[in-house]
């Protein structure tokens, strides 16, 4: 039945280096054999990067130069990303009306803002939710207006509910009842409990309106937030995608943008995050820094911090994950948590979270998952 002749290839080994190199040199896509491609496609899809790489390869050498099955996966991923972007434009135009009614200042953040902005970073970007930010005093009315218009709170457990309300910079996620789109509503870039939450009026000076009338951060402010989101965080699960965001954002900078991002990082006290972003992007994507940039990085970060976080950015897909990688992930995770929460609260939070994790590791991941009820469920419908 198989149309291919039998061969005795060992599965191809790809590494982080393969991913880094292909991103910067998409023209080298021509050199990969089918086994390498099979692994690449699976890892890139896992990293939510297949559409973005496909697009870069298409621009560089044209997808039609690739093996037929690779073209198929690339085109499918690009189709999904295009559809995703269309949906986000639609949701934002709907949301714009609600937000104008209900809040003094509002803007779109992260992935949806990249899509709305039309910058290079919009290319092939996919994400799970739309992030909105409003001024803190408008939080209540914005939430009420959204709920009244079909954006419904999700059921989450009591601990998580309390966590969001007490300590976080956002309310529990909302989901559109009909379309299923997820929405996060924030009032700051980072949780106030961290003691690092910037005065948002500083950032409100860096809002620009897209041609579709959607407020987003200017390119330098957007880039700083991207750096904060990646490095002031414990969750590195989409870190590779986020690093390519930073590459594309920095890449679009003018000289003025560099000055402006340094100034804003200074004002909001996120110089470390900016320096880490510059360091990691330059290391991963082979960019030579100016002496001034190098000095900035050394001034605002420590050698080990830079090195370990760079390691933590590596893909965690089993095909790629280097041995011992868990150390760097654990470091990034602990560091992220410690940044976001004072020690006392952190210990309590981790205790509540790990209690459940220990139960799961002993009794199986699905010990808390109710087994599918089969026919009973059908008759209950």
């Amino acid at each position: 039945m198989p149309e291919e002749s039998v061969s005795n290839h060992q599965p191809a080994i790809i590494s982080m280096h393969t991913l880094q190199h292909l991103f910067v040199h998409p023209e080298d896509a021509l050199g990969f054999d089918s086994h390498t491609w099979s692994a690449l496609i699976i890892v890139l899809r896992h990293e939510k990067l297949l559409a973005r790489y496909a697009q870069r390869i298409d621009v560089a050498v044209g997808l039609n130069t690739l093996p037929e099955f690779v073209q198929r996966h690339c085109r499918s991923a690009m189709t999904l990303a295009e559809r995703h972007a269309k949906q986000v434009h639609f949701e934002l135009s709907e949301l714009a009306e609600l937000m104008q009614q209900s809040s003094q200042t509002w803007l779109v953040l992260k992935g949806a803002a990249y899509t709305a902005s039309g910058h290079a970073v919009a290319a092939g970007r996919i994400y799970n939710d739309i992030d909105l930010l409003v001024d803190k005093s408008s939080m209540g009315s914005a939430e009420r207006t959204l709920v009244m218009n079909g954006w419904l709170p999700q059921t989450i457990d009591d601990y998580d509910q309390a966590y969001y309300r007490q300590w976080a910079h956002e309310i529990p996620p909302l989901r559109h009842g009909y379309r299923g789109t997820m929405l996060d509503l924030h009032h700051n870039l980072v949780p106030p409990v961290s003691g690092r939450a910037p005065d948002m009026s500083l950032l409100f000076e860096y809002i620009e309106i897209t041609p579709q009338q959607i407020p987003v951060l200017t390119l330098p402010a957007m880039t700083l937030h991207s750096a904060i989101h990646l490095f002031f965080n414990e969750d590195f699960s989409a870190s590779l995608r986020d690093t390519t965001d930073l590459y594309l954002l920095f890449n679009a900078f003018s000289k003025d943008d560099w000055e402006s991002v340094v100034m804003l990082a200074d004002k909001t006290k996120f110089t470390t995050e900016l320096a880490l972003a510059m360091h990691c992007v330059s290391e991963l994507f082979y960019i030579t820094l100016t002496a001034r940039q190098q000095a900035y990085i050394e001034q605002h970060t420590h050698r080990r911090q830079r090195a370990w976080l760079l390691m933590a950015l590596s893909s965690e897909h089993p095909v790629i994950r280097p041995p011992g990688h868990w150390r760097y992930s654990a470091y990034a995770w602990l560091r992220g948590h410690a940044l976001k929460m004072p020690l006392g609260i952190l210990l309590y939070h981790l205790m509540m979270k790990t209690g459940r994790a220990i139960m799961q590791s002993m009794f199986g991941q699905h010990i808390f998952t109710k087994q599918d009820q089969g026919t009973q469920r059908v008759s209950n419908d």
Partner: protein
Amino acid sequence: MLKTFELALPPFHFQIQTDLPLVVDNLKAMYGHGLLDVINGHTHLAYIDYKLHITHTNGFRRFYKPQARFKCDQYEPFKPLNHSQAFAMLEWGMNWTIASYEMEHVVIHSGVLARGDEAVLFPAPPGSGKSTMTAHLAFNGWRLLSDEMALITPLTQSVVPFVRPICLKNQSIALAKQWFQDAAFSSIAKDTHKGDVVHLAAPVHHSSDLIRPAQIKAIVFPKFVANAQLEIVQLNQAQAMHQLADNAFNYSVLGDKGFNTLIGVVERSACFVITYSDVQDVQAFLEQEVLSQANDIVGEHYA
């Protein structure tokens, strides 16, 4: 022990890893020569499209009411099921994988059978007797392209085979075992969300059956009603379009291309709702009135 297989199932190549003997036995029964053992890392296929896993859940749960979990690469779309349902879960997982990632075709939840190269789509919700009809035709002179998924090449009438076992439910299981005594059946997955489920290996008469496309000539929405007289209602194009879109997995993702494909298919096909109790009546109607020799009749309605 974790075993690795490759499965060439045009137009896709799957890698399947499992530690469940029940899954291995059923895979062998259902896919025969298409299933390739990977021993000591020696692979057979030039490339793999999707890596699937169906394994025991971890921890103590393995000893108490053991469960099976399905993963497509690292992603787990479903909650675990009782391990006796593992093979059915793998089949549904394959459907989920294609419905989620395949955007090169317009994918419709539909049986597809062809006589020669003329295809009829049977899009229908569970309980309509679609799979019983599919099984009957597949063993009576028609060519099975798919029991669950029609892969239509965008902006054409062409449907590509994705030949998989036929999924039979509840009462139709006994019926099919009586009809097709020589055919290969999977073990029964009891009490799934669809009831009791058995898979029936697709009859493949020629290796080209797995890859030769067919042209869509008719769309039939079947409705099984016990003891009913055959009743055929012709749908107008708007009704047919509406019903077809309801059964399409990725039509909205494909945007204009998806929409125009379905419009084209509906415009060039005869569309019916058929209420029946005897599958042979439907077969006779399709063969005598709808396909080739009856092209003139179809043409009149859509001139």
